[in-house]
């Protein structure tokens, strides 16, 4: 379990650094896809226990140090979709395309709703949130959905590193 958490947190952190540097100007309309979120979602879906939520929490802390957000902000934002993905595995089984797309899109929406929840809870002085009416939010959701099948396929090839126990076990 520790190996899975460490590996997925490490990979998410690498993606976060790539997002801040190589992708700093965005991929489409200045929007940066959240590859770290996709890794967390896949790990949460593929593992039986709470590895996804824990690595989401840790990757969120890394993200907070790279961002101007308050500490704990992205941890909160990543734990919620990870938790939802871990519940989803009891309902649907993974395929090559549709489930990854839905997972990437819906995970971004959950992240967005979580950010709005924090904004309502703590006020706008220190907290920013996605605006549901802003096109950038929906572009990010679509980008995450679009990249999910490819990334999930690649992660599937490294299953030994990121999965402690299979869901079907």
């Amino acid at each position, binding site marked *: 379990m520790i190996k899975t958490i460490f590996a997925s947190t490490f990979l998410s952190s690498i993606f976060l650094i790539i997002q801040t540097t190589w992708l700093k100007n965005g991929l489409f309309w200045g929007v940066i896809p959240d590859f770290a979120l996709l890794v967390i979602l896949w790990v949460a879906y593929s593992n039986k226990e709470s590895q996804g939520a824990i690595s989401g929490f840790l990757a969120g802390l890394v993200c907070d140090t790279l961002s101007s957000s308050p500490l*704990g902000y992205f941890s909160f934002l990543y734990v919620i979709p990870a938790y939802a993905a871990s519940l989803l595995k009891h309902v649907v089984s993974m395929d090559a395309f549709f489930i990854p797309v839905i997972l990437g899109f819906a995970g971004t929406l959950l992240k967005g709703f979580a950010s709005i929840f924090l904004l309502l809870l703590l006020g706008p002085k*220190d907290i920013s949130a996605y605006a549901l009416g802003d096109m950038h939010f929906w572009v990010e959701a679509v980008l995450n959905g679009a990249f999910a099948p490819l990334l999930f396929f690649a992660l599937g090839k490294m299953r030994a590193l990121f999965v402690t126990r299979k869901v079907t076990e």
Partner: protein
Amino acid sequence: MPQKKRSRGISATHGIPIILLAISLLLISISTKSILRLPGNIASALAGGTQYLFSSVGGFVKRTVFSIRELADLRSQYDALAEKLKSYETLERNYADMMSENERLKEQLGFAQNITAIKASSRIIAKDPGNIFSSYVIDKGLSSGLEKNMAVVAFQNGIEGLAGKILDSKHSSSIVLPVFDQRFFVSARLSRTRAEGLVNGQGNPDDALVMRYISKLNAAEIQIGDMVVTSGLDSIYPADLAIGRVKEIQLPEYSSSAIILLEPSLNFSKLEYLFVLQKDTDLATSAQTVSDVKAKER
């Protein structure tokens, strides 16, 4: 026995994320020092959420009903805008002449140019990892003498424009909060009319900056294209740094003050280098003294 194992697994699946969420909330509360405000915030969030819902529904109905009438109004608005455009074009033509005239007048009056001391020049090496917050990471930090709340400027097309302020400084890098961030506020004034207000961003470099707290009386003198600069009345930013130009003037019926939308002076998508200014609280003091003297003269 296997059933027992299963139930323990499910409780951990639910329990750990909930604990992690609680820790995250606690961390945010501590880092934003908002833990004492939390109960009040929960109550106001519930009330505010309900109000927002009702307001959205009401707004939607109102917009739908009045959309036809709005169409009819569009024609008259179009004519008014065309008229404004004409005056804007005239302003544009006269702008260069006015600038040089302004320079000459300044020299004649013996006013010293506002020389802003640059503490460090830096390069943008990274940006915020997500799309929610907007910040830049520059390659200079504590080791170069940079501190939190230092003003950051950039030069573009011959204009020294306000880019933001340092939010956090580490050993060899710093996080810069740009002007267009929602959490950014700066005391500003209109260069021509000298009316003062507060400018803040809307979170997106493509969106206009918003200037508030300008009375409707003062707003009547404002023209599209007017330059907005820092007032120097806070302890962070020196006076007369370009912020943006007036793009739109809104006069909401519910308020006694106008909302001015500004086109930022800097094109943030093209920024590569930023310059951090020396922290100088004396600037604010001297600016305050000047305004005090002016007040006395009046």
